[in-house]
């Protein structure tokens, strides 16, 4: 300051400037410190997080879907395995020109119009990252052709992977279920990137679904370094997948397929259990869908065809089908009578009808069986014997026995959809209908009609428990077989009497003579049954009840059959339930089907020979018939309808949850209600008695 001082305000001004310049400098250092601090926060405190983000930027991990664990039968034969699969997918986000790409793919892969409709629908619904299946199970040459043209078709992803394979096809459909791509909801719920990996499939139904955790395995990963534009820079280490665990089932694959074929054109089910352990040797519900094509994703046309079929191929009848068990409960009734102190030798006179109150209840044999004892009543399926005895005893004494042998019970099985029916008694009716139990209720229940409902699995368990005298539990997984089942709380002598009655059904001039085994030293014990599903009006009764052959399919009687063999030392028990069979075709009726399935267990050759003789009479094996049915259905459906009917493989519901199944269930419930409503009038099914498959031989 060597100049002369200016006016005071100027000096003040200089002072203000210096002060503010210092302040400014300090503020700048402050801001610099904040910036340095921010940088330290990002790079030191949050370093780990940003490192991770940087890595996930840099490294593009492509998951390799794990190989799914096999389902094998008790002998180790595959029921569901994996085959090499060449597949082509579309990644919607990367597709540049959809029309051009689809046109090229159509030509390369020989896609049909239906395929294209499905792909377009899937593309529309798909989230950008979720691959859309173009084709699976592509032949090597077509696959190679797509690979060659991949560079000019962005978004097209040819991959080599594994696909689920069910060697027995439809025969195991309701046992295994099937697999399919995860739905958008499933992905949203779990955020599991595996769910959107092309080629990954998870269980949608049956064992595939319930055993999903064991079967899935752990995905492998291909790690590549990529630029922001997705250009590959380097391949990093690849992690191999851990295949899912093989699950060994108690099923005998051979028997399963045999039973499925032997059911023929029936809409029915067959269950075979091991009387020593409770292991399930077969569990068949036919007709069924082909799980192979379901796993590939089916078209709406196929779905419609399956839904419209009155044989309900989408329903697992073994666990979802509920039927009035009809006369198959008579051995169980007999057991209840014996346990209540009825002598097996006490006779009841059957004159063909029984008057109770204002109603008249008939036996299926209009002329009557004459004086008949317990064994005879089981063998001849005499209705009057059981009406009379249970009228005396009351059904409340029978119901506990029914429950003990497995009716109304839910089993611990890895099957998603189990419906377990009803064992009625007075308390149940009071609860449900707020009305008193009547004698008519007892009589209807005594012939397995009215309120009584059971699924085929329960009927097989009933046969197994009566045969073995033990509270065996059915099992489906080899490592979950329950050993050391306790004895039934019934006297061995009483069980023996009932078993003798069942022996007489087949071997003592009873109603099941046709099912006699032609195997030396092995005798079958059985009980036949028929369940009425319609209401028979008074008018019809007067003019004569219509025969099953005269009725439309849906109104025909169900045919039921329970059996075990060999009689002395029971080894296998089975139940066969045929919906609306009506006992119209001998070869397709329960006794012969039961005979052949049981024969398979003791003499495979003979059983196969028998099948070879009869199978051509109903149009050949399962595959042939399914192909013929589909061709016929296609022929009747116009192309326009097919164009509308575009399904995606992910939005089809699981078969056992399909609407068609619900509708079938509703229909059978309605039938049940119809017959039950007659009971209120003092009549009901019992007033016409049971109908039996064959005349005593």
């Amino acid at each position, binding site marked *: 300051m060597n100049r002369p001082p200016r006016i005071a305000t100027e000096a003040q*001004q200089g002072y203000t400037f210096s002060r*503010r310049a210092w302040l400014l400098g300090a503020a700048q250092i402050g801001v610099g410190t904040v910036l*340095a601090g921010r*940088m330290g926060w990002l790079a030191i405190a949050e370093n780990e997080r940003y*490192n991770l983000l*940087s890595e996930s930027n840099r490294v593009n991990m492509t998951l390799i879907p794990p190989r799914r664990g096999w389902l094998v039968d008790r002998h180790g034969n595959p029921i569901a395995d994996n085959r090499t699969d060449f597949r082509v997918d579309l990644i919607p986000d990367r597709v540049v020109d959809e029309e051009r790409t689809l046109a090229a793919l159509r030509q390369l892969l020989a896609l049909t119009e239906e395929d294209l409709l499905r792909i377009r629908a899937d593309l529309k619904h798909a989230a950008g990252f979720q691959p859309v299946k173009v084709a699976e199970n592509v032949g090597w040459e077509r696959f190679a052709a797509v690979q060659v043209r991949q560079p000019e078709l962005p978004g097209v992803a040819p991959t080599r992977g594994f696909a689920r394979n069910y060697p027995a096809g439809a025969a195991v459909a309701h046992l295994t279920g099937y697999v399919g791509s995860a739905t958008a909801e499933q992905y949203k719920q779990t955020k599991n990137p595996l769910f959107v990996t092309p080629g990954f499939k998870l269980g949608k139904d049956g064992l595939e679904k319930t055993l999903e955790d064991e079967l899935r395995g752990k995905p492998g990963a291909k790690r590549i370094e990529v630029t*922001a534009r997705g250009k590959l820079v380097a391949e990093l280490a690849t992690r191999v997948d851990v295949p899912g665990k093989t699950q060994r089932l108690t099923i005998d694959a051979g028997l399963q397929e045999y039973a499925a074929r032997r059911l023929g054109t029936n809409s029915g089910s067959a269950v075979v259990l091991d009387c020593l352990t409770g292991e399930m040797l077969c569990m068949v519900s036919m007709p069924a869908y082909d799980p192979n094509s379901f796993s590939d994703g089916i078209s709406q046309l196929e779905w419609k065809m399956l839904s419209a079929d009155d044989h309900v191929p989408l329903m697992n009848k073994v666990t979802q089908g509920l039927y009035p068990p009809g006369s198959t409960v008579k051995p169980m009734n007999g057991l209840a009578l014996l346990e209540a102190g009825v002598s097996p030798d006490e006779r009841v006179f059957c004159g063909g009808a029984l008057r109770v109150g204002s109603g008249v209840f008939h036996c299926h044999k209009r002329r009557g069986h004459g004086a008949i004892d317990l064994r005879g009543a089981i063998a001849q399926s005499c209705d009057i014997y059981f009406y009379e005895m249970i009228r005396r005893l009351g059904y409340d004494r029978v119901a506990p026995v029914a429950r003990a042998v497995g009716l109304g019970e839910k089993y611990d099985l890895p099957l998603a959809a189990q419906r377990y029916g009803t064992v009625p008694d007075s308390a149940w009716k009071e609860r449900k209908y707020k009305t008193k139990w009547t004698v008519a209720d007892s009589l209807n229940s005594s012939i397995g009609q009215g309120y009584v409902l059971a699924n085929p699995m329960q009927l097989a368990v009933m046969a197994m428990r009566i045969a073995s005298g033990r509270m065996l539990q059915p099992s489906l997984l080899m490592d979950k077989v329950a050993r050391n089942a306790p004895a039934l709380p019934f006297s061995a002598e009483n069980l023996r009497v009932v078993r003798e009655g069942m022996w007489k059904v087949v071997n003592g001039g009873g109603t099941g003579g046709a099912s006699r085994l032609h195997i030396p030293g092995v005798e079958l014990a059985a009980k036949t049954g028929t369940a009425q599903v319609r209401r028979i009006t008074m008018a019809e009764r007067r003019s004569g009840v219509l025969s099953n052959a005269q009725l439309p399919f849906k109104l025909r009687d169900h045919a039921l059959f329970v059996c075990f063999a060999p009689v002395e030392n029971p080894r296998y028990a089975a139940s066969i339930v045929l919906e609306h069979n009506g006992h119209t075709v001998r070869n397709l009726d329960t006794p012969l089907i039961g005979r052949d399935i049981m024969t398979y267990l003791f003499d495979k050759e003979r059983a196969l020979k028998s099948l070879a003789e009869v199978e051509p009479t109903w149009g050949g094996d399962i595959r042939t018939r399914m192909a013929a049915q589909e061709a016929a259905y296609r022929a009747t459906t116009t192309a326009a309808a097919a164009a509308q009917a575009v399904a995606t493989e992910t939005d089809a519901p699981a078969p056992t949850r399909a609407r068609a199944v619900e509708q079938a269930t509703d229909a059978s419930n309605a039938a049940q209600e119809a017959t039950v409503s007659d009971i209120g009038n003092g009549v009901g099914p019992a007033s016409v008695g049971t109908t039996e498959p064959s005349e005593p031989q």
Partner: protein
Amino acid sequence: MIGPSFVPAPVARLPWRMLILVIAIASFGLVILYSAAGGSVRPWALSQGIRFVVFLSGALLIARIPEDVWRQAALPGYVLIVALLFAVELLGAVRGGSQRWLDLGFIRLQPSEVMKPAIVLACARFYELLPPNETRRFGAIWPAALLIALPAGLVMLQPDLGTALMITSGGLTVMFLAGVPLRLFVGGALALAVAAPLAVNFLLHDYQRNRVLIFMDPESDPLGTGYHISQSKIAIGSGGMTGKGFLHGTQSHLDYLPEGHTDFVFATMAEEWGVLGGLFIIVAYLMVIRWGINVGLQAQSRFAKLAAAGLATTIFFYVAINLAMVMGLAPVVGIPLPLVSFGGSAQMTVFVCLGILMSIDRSNRVEKSW
């Protein structure tokens, strides 16, 4: 700072400490650009290096211009540049959605860039001309406010929010240094703090509001507008203390970091050099700016004081806004990091600022040596 006797006096009298810092920052910038190009001097490092030499020489020439020339040219220059801004508005070239350039055939001019130092000089000149006893009156405020608002408004029309912000900040800084009552600044800051959220909620369009919200939480929209900030933070954050090593940055080399050689060059640097590299740049710049403020503190004339501190602060705003932006503390406004980011405009502006600062510094010494 007088060197050995064999060094010619004009060279020895140069502010070497500042020049060495500037050369160090720019050289580091060239190293970063070399890496950003994947280990190549092309296309960025080489041309940037040449430009640096040219601009540095230009700054040394500017330093020879006497302080008084700046004083006399301040207001006419300001008027000329405002006229050019009008010209840009009328016939300027549109690039990348905004109209910033004036194509004169042989040279492309960006008048808004030159306005950054020009507004400082114009305001400094205005307050020099203002009688000291007027400083705390309204007459000290409205002309300056007008001086600032006119170019800032024209630049906003282009639209170029970043530059408008810098012009306003530069002008306000000079007003602050000139002694305009502090309560105006405090009150203005408070009013802004209140008005900003209201403006965000009621005045902005949806897309503009989204931009502000994305700035607040860039991860919420990682592939949209927030992508730049997200990727920049990932680059800085993953660098750690010492960085991933020269040429080993993945964010920049694999193109995840957008604008890795221009506005986001700091992130490219931070990924490879870590916090240490960042501290170097921050500290070096603060020292350069401190030198500039000291030039102002030592200056004799009111114009020189205000101009020097204002120009130093202009450099500070460049650096601070850019760093705040790449670290996710400010919205993406397109302000490059001078001397480091590839590109000529910002570099030129900074060297103009440094040249004028050196010129003022020179007259300080001359006056002192008398």
